[in-house]
């Protein structure tokens, strides 16, 4: 990889978010997580259900209030944004949701759904301009113009997800959080949507935070991958490094769970069980750079061990 020190677009520093803080049922959804997302890259976030991936995405968009830590977007601290600055930030960062059925209001026409961001930020001066913008966005995501007057329930899953993408793009954001945008779609449609997202990334020089639990799809689209488990970030590295040379046992376990599209190989596939005591033994762990650009959550001894294992 060429070292050109790209600009950091999003920086999370020691971010914490606990639900039901101080109560018996406290959940540490985000537990001291730090990572950066560089401008123009796709950062994949993987982990099992309930590992806090979605919560991180929503916290960055200020849908949840973090309990501690800081978030920076484009050099500006966004942890405590309010009012005007918050609405400016929201023009720059948008979200694509998991379930295209649930993320579109069934009582609104597609035109009004897509134009919601335009209306809120007064981006169109007249009705014609608004319609023209919606038209442009529909073209961008490959939908017909007569779709504007229809209701979401008339569309297929892939089409709905593209409407969701058009809505996010309406405010011309720099950064898009894609919260499992393909896990509710069937495989042929997944390809359609992922291709569209890649195409849009090139055209609009977008930065993505791509949240998913499907490691193979994440590897396909991401430049770098972060692995999460129980609210903690366990490993960060380039997608090749994480995929081909996983360090943390949890990552190894995740990778061993990917089915192989070859019956013979699939029969031989051995699932590696993950021993959670490595997270619960109470030792102090921090992100240690084992290889350049490849971090793992470990004690210094463990890091040394991981290093040894590679050879």
């Amino acid at each position, binding site marked *: 990889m060429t070292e050109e020190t790209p600009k950091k677009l999003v920086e999370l520093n020691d971010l914490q978010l606990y639900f039901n803080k101080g109560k018996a049922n406290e959940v540490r959804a985000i537990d001291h997580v730090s990572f950066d997302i560089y401008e123009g890259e796709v950062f994949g976030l993987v982990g099992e259900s309930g590992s806090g991936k979605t919560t991180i995405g*929503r916290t960055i*968009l*200020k*849908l949840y209030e973090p309990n501690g830590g800081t978030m920076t977007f484009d050099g500006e601290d966004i942890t405590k944004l309010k009012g005007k600055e*918050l*609405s400016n930030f*929201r*023009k720059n*960062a*948008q*979200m694509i*949701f*998991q*379930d295209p059925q*649930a*993320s*579109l*209001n*069934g*009582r*609104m*026409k597609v035109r009004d759904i897509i134009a*919601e*961001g335009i209306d*809120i*930020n007064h981006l169109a001066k007249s009705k014609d301009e608004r319609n023209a913008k919606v038209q442009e966005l529909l073209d961008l995501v*490959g*939908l*017909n113009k*007569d*779709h504007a*007057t*229809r*209701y979401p329930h*008339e*569309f297929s899953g892939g*089409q709905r997800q593209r409407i*969701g993408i058009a*809505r996010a793009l309406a*405010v011309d954001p720099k950064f898009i959080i894609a919260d499992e945008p393909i896990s509710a779609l069937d495989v*042929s449609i997944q*390809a*359609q949507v*992922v*291709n569209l997202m*890649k195409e849009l990334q090139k055209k609009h020089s977008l930065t993505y935070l791509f949240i998913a639990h499907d490691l193979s799809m994440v*590897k*396909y*689209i991401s*430049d770098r991958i972060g692995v999460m488990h129980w609210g903690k970030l366990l490993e960060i590295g*380039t*997608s*090749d490094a994480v995929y081909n040379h996983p360090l943390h046992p949890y990552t190894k376990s995740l990778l061993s769970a990917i089915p192989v599209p070859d019956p013979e190989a699939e029969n031989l596939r051995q699932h590696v069980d993950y021993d959670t005591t490595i997270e619960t033994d109470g030792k102090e762990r921090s992100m240690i750079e084992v290889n350049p650009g490849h971090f793992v959550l470990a004690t210094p001894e463990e890091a040394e061990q991981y290093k040894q294992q590679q050879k």
Partner: protein
Amino acid sequence: MAANTEDFVIVGAQNSEANEHISKPALSFWQDAWRRLKLNKLAVISLWFLVFILGFALVSNFFVTQNKANAFDSDNVGKYKNLPPNSGLPIPGWDGKLKEPGATDTTDPYKNNNVKQNFILGTDNIGRSLGKRVIVGLRISLLVAISATFIDLLIGVTYGVFSGWKGGWVDVVMQRIIEILSSVPNLIVVTMFGLLLGNGVTSIIIAIAITGWLSMARQVRNMTLSLKERDYVLAAKSLGESSTKIAIKHLIPNMAGTIIVQIMMTVPSAIMFEAVLSAINLGVKPPTASLGSLISDAQSMLQFYPYQVLIPSGVLVLISLAFILLGDGLRDAFDPRASED
């Protein structure tokens, strides 16, 4: 990162215009609901009946005033009292003939008393036209129904959305207020307002205003709690939409079905409430007629002049039934999944 540069290739049909085309006509939520409502004959009949009744009640203001319905000829009470319904046509039971109490033959009180007028619905015990009094009673019932609807919409929906949306301790306090209010018996509230403002439609409406919106507020709060976690609300939030706009654009339209059905349930109970209150003399003041007071006034004469009870009761039952049937139809129309079995 070679894998990153190549696209998936879609085999088979390409992303053509034809592929994306939807040939089904665009139906909005309301059009779809209307289409389903039309399948329910009873609901459609009820709807037209209610539209007709409402129109009739509005127009009747011009030719049947309250004073006209209350006035009676004090010199000729004996001549006009307790005349049976007379359509002027030889229809049995509706021809002005009556079997007097204790008599074996039917008599014609119109001819005997030399009454020229035909009272289509007969007269009451002091000679007032029952038809006119029923019309006035109908108007009061509908007035109560309409104000109950307004209060439900205005207070119930706003309160529920606010409580559910804010959540936390605001929600807790607001829900406790509802519980306190709903634990006060309606009758006490009405009696209190009767003492304060005097019996009448106003105090009934205020009593309904205080207690009638509670179940609506609860329902709307429940819906708000579930809807506010929906992705489209999060999407609107992340686009920077204000809470008021989210409530108007996303929350309320998506609970329109629940709201309408709830109104259809509140209306008949409000109408009944007024009738019951008037029947036990807590409602409208005596010279004014209400369906409830007409029924209770005529009750003592039920065996001799049954029509004086049957006519206002029939009207009351028909309106309530129409509202309930329409409400049933609307519930099915708005929530097709609930009625599939």
